[in-house]
């Protein structure tokens, strides 16, 4: 199973003030907050970690029919950033998810899966929410934010 999440950086800047007191404490562990405060571009780190958590949560919620808002229970680790891509893990209890991210000035996109192999076999299309017949190709995972629609195909 695949999960994915996209953040439109322009939209995020309009909609979310992550510098608001208390905000980061409710979303991120102290280790994750350290990654944010020590990042050269903290904005990018905030939304990278957020898309990692969201993409893993999408699998977790589908598998376990789970509905909760517990971002701090989704823990990002083993994060390696390499120019415009990143890889990492998200754990939720005993479950480990593998993530792969694309970091661009316009958007940050992360896919999550239960194995690394699965991550490497999917294809990704980043398009506009205006492309109306996207559902006909049967994407495995859909994410929409701002001007972007992210589709993942197995």
């Amino acid at each position: 199973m695949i999960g994915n999440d996209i953040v439109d950086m322009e939209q995020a800047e309009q909609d979310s003030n992550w510098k608001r007191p208390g905000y980061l404490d409710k979303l991120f562990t102290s280790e994750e907050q350290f990654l944010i405060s020590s990042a050269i571009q903290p904005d990018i780190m905030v939304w990278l970690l957020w898309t990692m958590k969201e993409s893993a949560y999408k699998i977790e919620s589908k598998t376990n029919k789970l509905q909760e808002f517990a971002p701090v229970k989704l823990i990002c680790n083993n994060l390696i950033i390499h120019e415009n891509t990143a890889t990492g893990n998200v754990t939720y209890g005993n479950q480990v998810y593998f993530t792969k991210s694309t970091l661009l000035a316009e958007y940050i996109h992360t896919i999550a899966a239960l194995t690394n192999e699965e991550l490497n076999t999917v294809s990704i299309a980043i398009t506009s929410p205006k492309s109306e017949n996207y559902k006909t190709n049967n994407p495995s995972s859909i994410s929409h934010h701002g001007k972007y629609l992210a589709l993942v195909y197995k």
Partner: protein
Amino acid sequence: MTNEELIAKLKPIVASYAQDKAALEKIDKDTDFIKDLKINSANLVDVVLDVEEEFDIVIDNTSMEKMLSVGAAMDIIEAKLQEK
């Protein structure tokens, strides 16, 4: 605080983040923040922080986990107000 008073205080808070303004007009305790009001998940934190400020309460992570609907928010606010 009556249920009506609670909803009246919650409505302007969620209105700032709700993308479905029509659903906002029909708000009641069954209204789901994400499915009905189309609040972005990153903005759920803002709802929680605004509720903390408005009611002068602290919402711990365990309570926040369940805060996905107007009814759940009302239960949490009432419980936290009782603790004060």
